[in-house]
């Protein structure tokens, strides 16, 4: 069974600063996908960024980037130039590349961006 750990229940950052959210996972799978989802106060879950485990290059989406360390089973999210709209709970998720496709989510990190 897979586990996903987000060790930071809460974090805060000043507007325009950079913040990194950590995520580690445990699996015996070799092929899988990793995701970061954002859940703002509206509760809508939104995909932020996706990483395929077979790709060595770290994924980037505008101000969001990841640091994927496969050997260390680490998948951190970096938010650059933080904006007030980034205030949300962030979930790290693991999905094995098997026919089951069942995802495991971490407990989430609540990020507050301060003006």
């Amino acid at each position: 069974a897979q586990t996903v750990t987000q060790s930071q229940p809460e974090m805060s950052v000043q507007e325009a600063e950079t913040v990194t959210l950590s995520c580690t996972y445990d699996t015996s799978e070799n092929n899988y996908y990793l995701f970061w989802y954002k859940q703002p106060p509206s509760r809508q879950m939104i995909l932020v960024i996706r990483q395929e485990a077979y790709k060595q290059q770290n994924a980037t989406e505008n101000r969001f980037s990841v640091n994927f360390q496969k050997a260390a089973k680490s998948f951190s999210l970096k938010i650059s130039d933080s904006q007030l709209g980034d205030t949300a709970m962030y979930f790290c998720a693991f999905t094995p590349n098997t026919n089951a496709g069942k995802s495991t989510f971490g407990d989430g990190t609540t990020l507050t961006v301060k003006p």
Partner: protein
Amino acid sequence: DARVTQTPRHKVTEMGQEVTMRCQPILGHNTVFWYRQTMMQGLELLAYFRNRAPLDDSGMPKDRFSAEMPDATLATLKIQPSEPRDSAVYFCASGQLAGLSYNEQFFGPGTRLTVL
């Protein structure tokens, strides 16, 4: 703009009543998930379907919960009888698994259930 829809968005009911939540997945997606989110337990997977067939419902209390997909455009989650501990936000999500590759899950807006 394709999206997952869920009804109702809010439901307040009394203990012992039946609750039915509905989900319309994104057209063409072959996988549907039901999650429950609470402060204490976080995001829990209750059940999921592939091509309308149930693949895993091990996260669901079998005595009171049931999940079905009567057709490709509708998934239902039913609680009978409901209890106060079922109070939570219930999310439906859909995705497309083709072969061994997997895309993101698209989440609905959730149903906030309060059982008094």
